[in-house]
């Protein structure tokens, strides 16, 4: 049986970590990020698509992602690819450490 999908609160709380993880080592455009999240987690992560783009723009605005235009998309205009910046890589490492410590602590409580 597939696990229950994460609640919106849980997903929102870890959205940055998820997006930075997906983009680690491979620039992707918005639609492909959603597909990647689904395929790499067996459908566990199913974003509300409308929340993806503000999040990507926020991370870009914060300097954690850079963006560049690639091949023409379905509307004939270049697709916008997002990639981790060095600051994004550092943020990802920090968020992973923070998340690891949190899940270990929950595990020690016997909850996992």
């Amino acid at each position, binding site marked *: 049986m597939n696990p229950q999908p994460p609640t919106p609160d849980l997903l929102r709380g870890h959205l940055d970590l998820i997006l930075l993880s997906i983009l680690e080592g491979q620039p992707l455009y918005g639609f492909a990020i959603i597909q990647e999240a689904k395929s790499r987690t067996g459908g566990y992560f199913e974003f509300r698509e409308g929340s993806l783009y503000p999040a990507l723009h*926020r991370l870009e605005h914060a300097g954690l992602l850079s963006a560049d235009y690639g091949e023409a998309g379905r509307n004939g205009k270049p697709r916008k690819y997002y990639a981790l910046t060095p600051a994004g890589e550092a943020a990802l490492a920090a968020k992973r450490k923070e998340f690891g410590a949190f899940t270990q602590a929950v595990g020690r409580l016997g909850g996992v």
Partner: protein
Amino acid sequence: MSAPAYAAQQVAPALERYLKRATFGLNAERRQAIWDELEEHILTRQDGYCLLGHDPDMALRLAISELGPALKLSAGMNWVHNMPKMILAFSLTALLGALTAVALSSAPPLVEVISQRPIVPECSRLSQPLKYDPTITIISHHGNLYCYTYNQPVQYRGTFVNIDNLATTISGQGISVSSQIIKNGKKKWILTSNNRAKTSLIYSDFMRDGKSYIDLYNLVDGLTALGQITVTGYLEPTIQVGDVRFRVPKTPAHAAAAPLWNEEMYDLVVKLFRKSNGRVAGSSRALYRPDGMPVHTIQVGGQPDPIYGLIYYDAQEVLIYDFNAVAENGSVEFFSSRQKIEIVTDPKKVTPYFKNGRAQALLIRLSGRIDKATGAEYSIIQPSQLTSDAK
């Protein structure tokens, strides 16, 4: 990084309307870049639905619904890009999402409407702590995740139709209506015209007290799939599609049809002037009267009721429009930031520059007919009064 420039290309009206709303309030360059990004997403998603066997129109609607409410997307984008200017961006965004209360009853029946959407906190994660902003109230925050509401009720104002009530009324007029629960508990209504074998899909924008509501503009947009729409009246408009007719009751704060015409005017100005998105803006007449803005009174004659629009450039070279119904005395009032205007009949003569000390403006008349493919039907008017000095 800046977005590349592209040649304009045709997009489906439903897609264009969604993108227009989803990118509202952003500056022109950013708006175009985000427009293109979202458009590419929706078209790719549409292809996927087509492969699953949906027809292109249905596939497009499903693809758009996957992105969620345009206003919410717009709010997220404005929060990221326009935080210092949120009040302007959101008053205009909310203006675009206007709704009232409709109640179908006799001939034509009134439908049940409300004129204020629920004040629901928006949540956004910021890259740095939020400074004091008098336009919003912070409801909660955890780290840099802020949930807030807007302080001005006008930002939640509009014309919103009770869909269940509407469906019941329309069902009695030769249209079959069914509803389905889609994912996340959201509901959609399928309206099928018995005689024309045409189908329309509408989706609720929000729920209040267990009832589903859709804004009037989105409703009319959905109904155009069933045939040409005719809207008569301004304060209490009657909407007709095929044999189906219903009336939208008066609302206390604004003309019930104003939010609808605000959207249609926007589409028309974009089409007429071939302007890129973000270089067109409406006045705030649709929802409230701005204080201190000059008013032009132009005699157009004829019966009260038809809607007229005035289009001109402001000092920032943005195309501005206002619209209003004709008064009993045959005149129509427009707000304009330009004190002196000259009315021209060729859109090419409307420029950002003064001629003989006057700004050029285009006067148009809306017939009330709205077509799915071509939008609102209009004609360019040359009144006997060719100039106007605002009071």
